[in-house]
C-alpha cells in the first residue's frame, strides 16, 4: 500500500485538529481538536511502522502507549472542563477568560 494515503489522511486530521483548537470557542471541542491532532500522529506512527516493516514494531508499541496516554489526558481534560462549568456555568473559552 502506498504511504501517501495514510499520510494524507493524517495531515487532514491534523489540520482539522489545529482548526478546532484555534477557532472553536467551546472548550470540549477544543479538547476534541487536541485529540484529533494526537490521533493523526498515531496514524503516522502506524503507517511508518508498516512502511519500514520494523521487526520490533516500535511504532505500533508506541501507538499503544499514546492511546493509553490520550485516554488519561482526555479524562483529565474533561474533568477540568466539568469543574470549570460548575464554577462559572459556561464552557466558552472567551467567556471564561474574561
Amino acid at each position, binding site marked *: 500500500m502506498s504511504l501517501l494515503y495514510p499520510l494524507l489522511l493524517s495531515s487532514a486530521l491534523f489540520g482539522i485538529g489545529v482548526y478546532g*483548537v*484555534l*477557532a472553536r470557542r467551546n472548550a470540549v471541542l477544543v479538547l476534541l481538536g487536541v485529540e484529533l491532532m494526537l490521533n493523526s500522529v498515531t496514524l503516522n506512527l502506524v503507517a511508518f511502522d508498516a512502511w519500514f516493516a520494523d521487526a520490533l514494531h516500535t511504532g505500533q508499541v508506541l501507538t499503544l502507549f499514546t492511546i493509553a496516554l490520550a485516554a488519561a489526558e482526555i479524562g483529565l481534560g474533561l474533568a477540568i472542563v466539568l469543574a470549570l462549568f460548575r464554577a462559572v456555568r459556561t464552557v466558552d473559552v472567551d467567556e471564561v*477568560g474574561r
Partner: protein
Amino acid sequence: MSRRWGYVGLTAVLAVVVAVWAVPEVMRHGYFGRYVGASRPGVDPPLPSLSPDLFLFPQAAQIVLLAVGVGLLVQIYSTAYLGRHPRYRSYALVIVLFLLGMIAVVGTTNLWVLLVGWEVMGLCSYLLIGHEWETAPARTGAAKAFLVTRVADLGLVMAIIVIGETYGTYDIVGAQVAQADGTRHATLIGLLVLVAVIGKSAQFPLHTWLPDAMPGPTPITALIHAATMVAAGVYLASRLFFLYADSQLVLTLMAGGAAVTMLMGALFALTSSDLKRALAWSTVSQLALMLAAVAAGGAEAGLDHLVSHGVFKALLFLGCGCVMLAVGSSALSAMGGLRRSMPVTFWTMTIGFAALAGLVPTAGFFTKDSVLHAIEVATDGDHGLAPGVARALLVVALVTTFVTAAYATRLWVLTFLGPVGADRADRADHEVREQPPAMTGPLVVLAVATFALSVGQPLHLGTGLLSTAVAGAGVATVLLLARRGSALDRSPAPLTSELWLDRPFSRWVPAAAAPLARGVVDLDRDAVDVYPRGGAALVAVVSRGLGLAQTRNVQRYATVLAVGVVVIVVVGVVLR
C-alpha cells in the same frame, strides 16, 4: 543622647589618628631630603592624579591639629547646643566630612587632592550654613557663600593648571624643586592664587559672603571662621608663596587688598549692632592681617597668627553661642549685664577678647606681634614688597590694631557689663543662666589654649611695645567712653550699612545674571530637552503599536504561533 555622643566619638577617633600623624611633625622645620614622592618634575605636565601624597609641611601640622581639635570641641559643644535638632545626624556627619576636607587641603602635596579638599569644604560649608533651611536668611546665606567661593575655586583650578603647564608637575614639592631653576609665569600664577585666596578667605572685594553666613548654627560659624574654611585660603597663599614671591604686582595687590580689608572689617565690627556679625567682620579683618604678613614675606608669621586666631576666634564664637542661647538673640541690644549670670562664659570670652585685642600674655598678642614685625622687616624693601607699600601697610596694620582693641572692648562691655539691653524685656533675668558643661567645657579648653599657645612664641620688643601701646589706647578709649556714659551702640549710617559694598552682589550681579539664567533655561528646554522628549514619544508610539498584538486571547496567540511554524517550515524546508 548616646547617639549624639557617638558622633563625638567618631570625631575623637579622627582627631586621635590625625594627632598620631601630625604631632611628631610639629617641631620639624626643614623638609627637603626627607620627601621622595611624585615630585620629580617632567617636561610635560603629568596626567592629573588623585594619589593622596600625604605630607605635612612645617606649620601644616599645627593647622591640621587645630582643625581637628576645634572640630572635636565643636562636636562636643553641639551635643548641647543643637542636640534636639531633627537633622542632627547629617549635621554631625557633615562636620566630620568638613574636617576630612581640611585635612586633605593641608596634609597633601598633590594640588589636585588639595582641590578636592577645597571643594569638599565649600560644599560642606554650604550644607552647614544652610542647615536651618527653613529660614530664608539661612538659604540665601548658604547660596551666597557657595557662589562666591565658587569664584575662588575657579581661580584655584586655573592656578593648578598653569602651575602644571609651567613646571611640569602638580606636586607642591615638585614645583618647589623645579622653581629652583627660576620662577616662570609668577605674575599669572600669583594673580590666580590671589583670586582663590580672596574668595575663600573673604577678602575685599569678595568679602560679603562671610558676614552673611551668620544664619548658620553658631558652632559651625566657629568651625568655618576659625580653623577650616577661611583658613584654607591663607594656608594656600603662604604655601604657594614661593611661586609668586618675585612678582611685585601680585605682592602689591595682595598687600593693598589686605590693608583695605583689615581696616574695613575692623570698622564694620566696631559699628555692628549684632555680636555674631561683629565677630564675623573681625574674622575678615584678622584674615587680612595674616595675608598682609604673607604679602610682606612673613608667611610663617601669617600661619602662626592663623593658628592662634583659630583658637581664640573659636572661643569667641562658641561663647557667642552660649550668650545667644541664653538671651535668645544675637543682637547686642538684647545683651548686657551677663557677667554675674554667666560667669564661665564671661571669663573665657574675656580671655578671647583680650587675645583679639592683642593684649599680653595671650597668644593673640605674640602672633600679631610677629605679623607686625614681618611687615616692619619688609619696609627695608628686600622682601619683594616696595618699601613705600610696606610702610603704608604697617601704618594701616597699626590703625587696625587700635580699632581691633576698640571693638573687642566695645563688644565685651556691651555683652557682659553695662546695663541690660532694651530688647531683652521678654526674658526675666533669672532665666538667663550659665550653659551646661558640654558647652562651657570647650570654652575653658580653648581659653587655656589661648594662653598655652603663647609659650615659645618669638617676641619682638619694638613692635611689641608699639602694638601694646596702640591696643591699650584702643581699649582705654572705649572704656573711657563707656565710663562717661556715651552710648556705644551708635554709629554713622555708611558704616552700619557696611558702605553698601554688598550691593553689587545682592542687586547688580543677580540683575545681570537673571536674563542670562532665563536664556539658559529656555535653551535647555527648547534645544536640549527635545532629544529625550522626542525619544520618549517615539518609544510611546512604538509600544502602542506593539500593544495592539496583546489581545489577552490565548487562541489568537496560538494562531500566531501556528502560522509562525508554517512559515518557518515553508521557508526552511520547502524553499531551501
